């Protein structure tokens, strides 16, 4: 394998945009039959690099070779013709069209007179899906009705239908359930056996150790290094990414839980949450683990009034309360940082200053008008406190990086001075530095007496941050662990054990 000519090789790639040098001499290669992970904080240049490889951007300097021959892609089509396909985070499919139509969009088999050969299109789609060991996907099903996992499989089939030999996957697991992640890994391994070169981008280090053969790290547009995965450790990779050793990934903190501030008794919402109960004390961080679809986010949305409970009782400070809308929850001192900051957290065309003040407009108002001085003071303080990287408080939030956007959402909610903070995937898809900063803020808040409920799919985060861990499965809270007794194995077991197994036990 080591002797093989790389399928794709880049050397000394430089790419600048007005005001930014996105790539400063990056080298990278992928060989047949390997998974090569690309790692770096947000803004390190990963996206730019894959866009160079897939023909979206043309490099300013540097060489690109396919099978040892120099190439110069003028468009994504040229890259595809050379066998390079990319699957982006946002899947680019047509929801109204069928699986087969999507797979062969733009290069469908033709009949002699030029019409589309639908029989062939279906047959070849079925063939490709078979070859990926996907047997539960109907070529005629409309893509809009498919789960995220299945849509991604359609994207992979589409790439293969173009005879891709290099497949670039940009954070493919970001939106997948645990079971879908397993299947994706199966597919990736199968492709690797077939000799496809896979470029794999992920923030989840666990996946890289699980799947990748080599890993290349970028930092601030610069090439840091390439290593065989078996030769590096997680802390090494992290220090390569951030350029410093993070000796303590998670802030140490002694919990000092006070009285119960939030209690949910048998709350339910049809179809997602069945009789879930939990208590939350002042000054503690409770981690809520569970597979996607276990009802974690839905429980949070009940507590915040996004989807009011259909049954059960919620108590705040021991008093029964009705939470019918987010406005009710806000009045009770509850804040909620949603899972999807793009669709639920931010008003993207608005400035930082205006986003941060959105939940406290009434408090900032004198009569009908917003006190601009206080609004600016709030924004200035938050930008400093959360180290939000922006040109000014007047910058439009849509232009910020993921981590900074998340800090804006957090700042917006903390402005309401809540006593109960619910965080849904607070660090998903953000870079390591911002992640550590958000963790630090969470610890400080708990130390000041805030009750924090944190939903996370990352078990290390759950273990690292939580004083207690609750596990949800099939709409119920099925297990609880204290910090001392919580281990990755125990939590994972509770998350995944099926109801049947439990009854049998």
């Amino acid at each position, binding site marked *: 394998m080591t002797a093989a000519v790389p399928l794709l090789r880049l050397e000394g790639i430089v790419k600048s945009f*007005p005001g930014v040098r996105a790539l400063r001499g990056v080298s990278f290669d992928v060989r047949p039959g390997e998974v090569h992970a690309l790692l770096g904080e947000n803004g390190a240049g990963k996206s730019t690099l894959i866009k160079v490889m897939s023909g979206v951007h043309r490099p300013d300097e540097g060489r690109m070779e396919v099978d040892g021959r120099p190439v110069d892609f003028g468009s994504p089509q040229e890259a595809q013709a050379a066998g390079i396909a990319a699957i982006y985070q946002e899947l680019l499919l047509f929801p109204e069209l069928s699986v087969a139509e999507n797979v062969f969009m733009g290069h469908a088999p033709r009949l002699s007179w030029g019409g589309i050969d639908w029989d062939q299109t279906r047959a070849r789609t079925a063939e490709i899906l078979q070859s990926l060991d996907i047997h539960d996907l109907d070529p005629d099903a409309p893509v809009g009705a498919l789960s995220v996992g299945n849509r991604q499989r359609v994207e992979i089939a589409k790439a293969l239908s173009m005879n891709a030999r290099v497949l670039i996957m940009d954070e493919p697991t970001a939106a997948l359930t645990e079971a879908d992640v397993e299947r994706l890994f199966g597919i990736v391994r199968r492709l690797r056996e077939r000799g496809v070169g896979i470029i794999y981008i992920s923030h989840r280090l666990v996946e890289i150790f699980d799947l990748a053969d080599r890993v290349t790290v970028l930092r601030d547009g610069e090439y840091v290094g390439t290593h065989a995965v078996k030769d590096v450790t997680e802390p090494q990779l992290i220090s390569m990414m951030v350029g410093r050793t993070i000796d303590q990934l998670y802030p140490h903190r002694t919990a000092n839980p006070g009285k119960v501030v939030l209690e949910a008794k048998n709350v339910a919402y049809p179809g997602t949450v069945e009789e879930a109960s939990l208590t939350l004390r002042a000054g503690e961080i409770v981690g809520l683990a569970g597979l996607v679809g276990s009802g974690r986010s839905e429980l949070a949305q009940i507590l915040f009034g996004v989807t009011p409970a259909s049954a059960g009782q919620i108590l705040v400070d021991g008093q029964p309360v009705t939470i019918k809308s987010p406005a009710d929850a806000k009045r009770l001192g509850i804040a909620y940082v949603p899972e999807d900051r793009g*669709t639920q957290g931010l008003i993207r065309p608005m400035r930082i200053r205006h986003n941060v003040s959105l939940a406290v407009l009434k408090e900032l108002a004198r009569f009908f008008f917003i006190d601009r001085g206080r609004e600016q003071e709030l924004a*200035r303080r938050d930008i400093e406190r959360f180290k939000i*990287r*922006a040109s*000014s*408080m007047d910058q439009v939030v849509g232009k910020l990086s993921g981590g900074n956007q998340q800090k804006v959402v957090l700042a917006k909610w903390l402005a309401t001075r809540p006593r109960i903070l619910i965080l849904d995937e607070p660090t998903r898809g953000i870079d390591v530095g911002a992640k550590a900063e958000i963790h630090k803020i969470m610890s400080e808040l708990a130390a000041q007496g805030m009750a924090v409920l944190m939903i996370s799919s990352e078990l290390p985060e759950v273990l690292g941050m939580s004083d207690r861990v609750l596990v949800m499965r099939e709409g119920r809270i099925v297990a609880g662990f204290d910090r001392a007794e919580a281990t990755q194995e125990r939590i994972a077991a509770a998350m995944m054990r099926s109801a049947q197994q439990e009854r049998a036990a």
Partner: protein
Amino acid sequence: MAATMALPARSSAGSRLRRFVFSQEGILLIAIIVLFVAVGAYNQRFLSANNLSTIFLGNAYIAVAAIGMSMVIVSGNIDVSVGSLIGVLATISGTIAVSGLPLWLAWTLPILAGMAISAVSGWLVAYLRVPSIVVTLGMLSILKGGLISVTEGAWINNLPEGYHLAQLRPLGVPMAVWFMIVLTALAAFWMRYSGFGRSIYAVGGNAEAARLAGIDRARTVFIVFVIHGFFAGVAAILFATQLSVIQSTVPPNLELTVITASVVGGVSILGGTGTVIGSTLAAILIAAIGSSLVFINVSPYWLRAVQGLLILLTVLADLARRRKRARHR
């Protein structure tokens, strides 16, 4: 991308000026000045007090209607019935005026009627969640059909002495222009500095995030439509009182002219951005272009084509700005 820990101060005066010049409002203001200077140099009569007052008096009502329209569009909705609404309200105003009722009723009742009619549309959009384009298309037909049926196309003349509010000239400036300036200033201030104004932008920018922040989406949209009805009412009064005869037909394509003013003024059709100062400047620009065509001996029928061109230019300028922004990531 720039990983600088820049001191996030408020932007300096210089950069604010630069931002204004490149903003839609700045571009429009410059375009208006250039147009007046250029056409005035070609034909001095263009700048005569008489012509200027014709331009402003005859078109101020469009700018006033565009204020409400801009609010509706910023909130993520649209009203295509505004032309018919203005036609109906103008007729109501004229009918009251000739019926012998006190004149102040002819000046105020249509405003209340406008708010009531727009409240119906707003209620359907806000609380029943019917898309605004559908609701207002329906409203357009109802109003237009109703107007023609009820009036049978008769014109209202013999309007009483003193009815012509828009033509009054306090300090030598037509009343219609005063209305335009004062209402634009008030609305701009309200949109920018009030909590409610902020929630209009929030709802239009991301309704779900606004709801999670405790903003009542439905209530906001409903109130926006009612306010829009107010501006349509004022626009109808200005329209009705500038002429000696009120035709009981809807001014053709008026809704399109009003929407054009909003869009050319920089209000994003997707909602969430734009200002009423922009839409008023755009209304002035469109009116001035219309008048200048006469002075440079071009058929005024070209005005519609020019409006279309302006829309496309606006969209292109917006696109260029977005591109420039996108390249920074």
